[in-house]
């Protein structure tokens, strides 16, 4: 699994170098474009504050009250039998529904379990490799007035399920289940 680690390490610096060289060849005012795009980053970070405050408070309350632990104990035997870590279940449930809510859950899992723990890595991969089916469905179909969605929801949710399974399998193979 050395290869994946090396790719992970090299990927971003190489991509940055490539973009800068390509941009220069194409005569893009690189620094000015960079600043222009960077402004968008501030906007996004600020605009997700309310989403994260709402979701992190809710999860913190749920956890601090002891309800989360109770819920985990309740579902643990069934999930462990099939190899799904119970801690990931709340994230897996909310991922298709709300992207920013899922982001809150991911950061909570990383904060509590540590970024380099099995759960922390799994949450990281899960957040990055699945998308908010309901959001895409509502926004895209809503905007153009599609009322009869056919199999779209079923296909989208099954794809999410495959994403979750793929994340668990890939993380276990590459990092081990510790």
């Amino acid at each position: 699994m050395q290869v994946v680690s090396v790719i992970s390490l090299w990927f971003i610096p190489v991509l940055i170098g490539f973009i800068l060289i390509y941009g220069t060849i194409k005569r893009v005012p690189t620094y000015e474009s960079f600043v222009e795009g960077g402004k968008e980053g501030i906007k996004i970070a600020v605009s997700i504050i309310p989403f994260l405050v709402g979701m992190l408070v809710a999860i913190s309350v749920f956890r601090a009250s002891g309800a989360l632990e109770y819920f985990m104990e309740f579902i643990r035997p069934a999930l462990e039998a099939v190899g799904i870590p119970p801690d990931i279940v709340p994230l897996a449930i909310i991922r298709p529904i709300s992207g920013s809510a899922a982001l809150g859950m991911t950061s909570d899992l990383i904060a509590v379990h540590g970024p380099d723990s099995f759960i922390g890595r799994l949450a990281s991969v899960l957040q990055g490799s699945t998308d908010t089916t309901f959001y895409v469905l509502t926004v895209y179909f809503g905007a153009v007035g599609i009322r009869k969605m056919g199999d779209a929801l079923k296909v989208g949710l099954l794809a999410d399920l495959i994403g979750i399974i793929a994340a668990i399998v890939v993380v276990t193979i590459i990092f081990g289940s510790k």
Partner: protein
Amino acid sequence: MVNIIWVFLTVIGIIFAMVNGTMDQVNEAIFNGAAEAVTLCIGLISVLVFWLGMMKIAEDAGLLQKLSLLFRPIVKKLFPDVPNEHPAMGYILSNMMANMFGLGNAATPLGIKAMEELKRLNGGLDVASRSMITFLAINTSSITLIPTMVIAIRMKYESASPTEIVGPTLIASFCSAIGAIIIDRYFYYRRKKKA
């Protein structure tokens, strides 16, 4: 849906605290949770500004269009109902590229444009066509080259290697994209058989 989950988490938590005698911890959690969220978002600014700046250069240099040329043959196979030179094809490709580079805000309008064109192809009906469902399936499995937000969060919590999840994320999202396409095809042939 998210409203119900949000209220459920908070209210059940509070009721649980009443029964469990954990009101102290809950009080603390309310204010700590809020503070945590704000610190996190501020921490995200660094990576987001840098990455979106880089992506803007890629966009201005025409790199995204270049890449869509590369993906055109594959996408043509995925959308057999869309004629080659139809504008829908262009929008679908640009949407996929924007998603790949983590430009969520740029991806949404392109996705809506693609849907509009697909609706026109489908005679303007309010029924989801085959291509629309395929487009949705690909969108939900989201192949992302760099999961910027996740890396930023991992940095914030002092990961020994914040980017170590880049490779695994790519592999997992690639698997889920293949899975999504297979499921989409299965449902399509099932519909065809019924009709």
